[in-house]
């Protein structure tokens, strides 16, 4: 999966509320009907990058298994970014599909 797409997916699943890293991976997995599997090797670098950009914030909380864990929350900037990127992604896929079908 391209890293830009992963960022987009992370932002998208965080729109419904704060999640911790593992839950983000799980949510993507479920939402894609088990088609996409996010490895921790790509998830955590992507999360660090998003944190640096200021699209999410992180705060420590307690997990469902009563363990200390970091929850990521979408910021206003992240929301804007998500909308912009989703629109762009839409345009691009539609364009690619047009070409694929016509050829």
């Amino acid at each position: 999966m391209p890293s830009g797409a992963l960022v987009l997916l992370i932002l998208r699943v965080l729109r419904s509320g704060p999640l911790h890293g593992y839950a983000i991976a799980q949510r993507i997995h479920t939402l894609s009907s088990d088609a996409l599997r996010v490895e921790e090797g790509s998830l955590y670098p992507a999360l660090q990058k998003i944190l640096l950009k200021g699209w999410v914030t992180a705060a420590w909380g307690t997990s469902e298994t009563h363990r200390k864990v970091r929850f990521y929350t979408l910021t206003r900037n992240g929301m804007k970014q998500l909308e912009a990127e989703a629109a762009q992604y839409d345009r691009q896929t539609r364009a690619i599909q047009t070409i694929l079908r016509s050829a």
Partner: protein
Amino acid sequence: MRELLRRIHYLLNRRRFDDELKEEMAFHREMADTHGGVPLGDALRLREDSREAWGVMWLDRFGQDLRYAFQAMRRSPGFTAAAVLVLAVGIGATVAAFSAFNMAALRPLPVRDPETILRFQRHAPGRTSTEVPYRAVAFYREHARTLSAVLAQTASSLSLKGAERSPSTFFVTANFFDELGARPGHGRLFTADDARPDAPPAVVLGHGFWASHFGSDPSVVGTSAHLNGKAVTIIGVVAREFSGLAGDAPAFWALVEHHGYFVHGSRLLTDFSSGVTMWGRLGPGASPQMAEAELAALAAELRRQHPGDIWEDERLLGEPGGYAPLTGATSMFALVGALVLLILAVACGNLGSLLLARGASRRREMALRSAIGAGTGRLIRQLFTESLVLAVMGCLGGLALGSLVLKGIMVSTEAPPWLDPTPDWRVVTFAIAMGFLSSVLFGLAPALQIARQKQKKTVGRTMLIGVQVASSCVLLIVAGLLVRAAERAASTDPGFEYEHVIVVEPSLSEHGYTAARARTYIQDLSARLRGIAGVEDLSLTSTPPLGDRRMTSPRQLDGRALDVYIHQVDPQYLTTMKIPLLRGRNLIEGDDRGVVVSESLARRNWPDRDPLGQPFKTGNEALTVVGIAGNARSLALGDPDAVELYRLARERDLTEMTVVARTSGPTEALAPAFSAAANGIDPNLRPRVHLLKDQFHQNVREIERGALAVSVLGVIALAVACLGVLGLVAYSVAQHTKEIGIRMALGARPGHILASLSSQFRGTIIGGLVLGVLGAAGLAQLLRRELYGLSTIDPIAYISAIILFLIAVGLAALWPARRALRVDPLVALRCD
């Protein structure tokens, strides 16, 4: 911007963030474990990948590299010390040269607001003059609105009662000291009141003259002195660190308004015939362009009042005035710059080969590091970091060494006290740049070669040695040329008598003499001098031998630009100076058109014709050659190419005349009698009397000093280059120990071993020598144009430099090569 702040935040707290990441990922694993079956990667590696996003990894690595570099240096302190020393010498030489240039040219003079001071020159189509008539200066001062102050200065030599030589006096405007922020060392400086017509004449002492002549006695303030026989009160001594604006300090400072009081017949204040140097300080908000525009308008206005004295379309062009004028010294700086860069090149080449040689012993370490996963880029970065650490240390050493050397030079040459050798930001920046440049030069190539594990190819090393050989060769040859030039100047016959000649310079024009008065004066002086027992012969010239005055006419001879030194003399001159007349006749009184040329000029100008009777044009005069005299380089002692022309002095040259007298016995004994005779004619005039041989020896000493300085540079370069060759041969012997062992076991003689060892370097050294000779020939061309006029094709200088070089390099190579001969075949074969 925010992102940058966050990055810095991460950088500062990276340990905490790292722990948090660890914690988070551990949780992820726990969850994955309980929900079954995700394959795990290496946790540490995954964390590193995440950290990469913070963008601080390079800093961590750099820190690692630094620590590693320091470890490596501690392991081999001998190598480190040698490397830093070589580098410090190389950088130190460039730093010393640059500081000198910075001090003299780049730094403004230590006066108040030097940036707003402009020095003005007169310009008109086809004419320029560095001096502005004082009356024009006064007019500009009165009317210019863009200039907040106008300063002026003119130099003169006034005789001082009781002093042997006439000390220099600078006549300045009353605002000079105040405007430049000068402080008195003792007493007071000039104020506007001192310039009032009814004010008593006053002078201020220069600090250097106060120390040398008055023994730094503060009580001299308030006493009176006699300058040109006129009484004057010493009102103060200027502070030691005051530089003035001309870059040198006079014995006395006086006021322009009093010029006429001291100098009999002065017209400085009354007409436009003589000028002063003019400076202006820009007023608030004024730009140099505005000042120039205003002065051009004022000049036009002044021309309406004095049409004959101000030129048509005259403008005054301003240039930065707060800096010491560097006339003629630029080529000297260029030469020194070229020489010190050569030393730096030798040092870098040397260090490069040292590093390469050391790289061989680190091959195992490098192999190990690459085996455990270090990439080539990482290894190069590591090695380059080590070079950088060396460069920083060399840089510090060089900075210290350079300033120390410069301070030493300044003390030994009695540099002006206002020159401050302390390194400023320019010097430090320069040193850092040199350090970085040299770390690239000496560090990058070996780093690449080592990291790629190709050290068996010796191309890089060969080139580095070649550079050293060539550079040190250039330095040695140039030194050789200068030494030879000095030798020649000192040992060969200059072509004229100097041992028994006394020169008397009355400087009549500076004291307002007209041609008619000058004629009477000179006749009187000649008669008195002839009356002194021991004087054999006496004559006149406008350009005293070995003096500062010279008159030249540029000419194309043999396709080269050459200066013809023109001597305006009386017919007796050649006889007095014992310059032989080779052919034709001497100059005759009344024959203004006849000239006598030197043999060298005759040979160059008319290679295939008889010069006698040939026309010779100078300016717009047509002259005829009537005689040929021997070569006498009396105005350019060190220049074997100097050519001379003698012609009769005309009426208008009389005020410029100097008397030369040849004596039968030692000149020292007669000098007091000469002074007494010369001082007795005009009480306002103290002619300068000096022995020609003193001047001759001083000239020779100057040439020798230049040769010595370059020789020292050459020897330093040679020593560094020898060190490099020594290291190279030692390395080569170590590398070939096994081979040498086998060959010795098979019966090779020591001679064979040495021959095969030397065959590796022969090409490099010969190539370097050839390059060096070519470089030296090029540099000598430059030198010849600007300096002592040395001969560019001086086989002895070239050959002796090359022989010296070969001997030194041979000895340096032989020392480690002896080890090769002591190799024990049994031991050699057993080692791996």
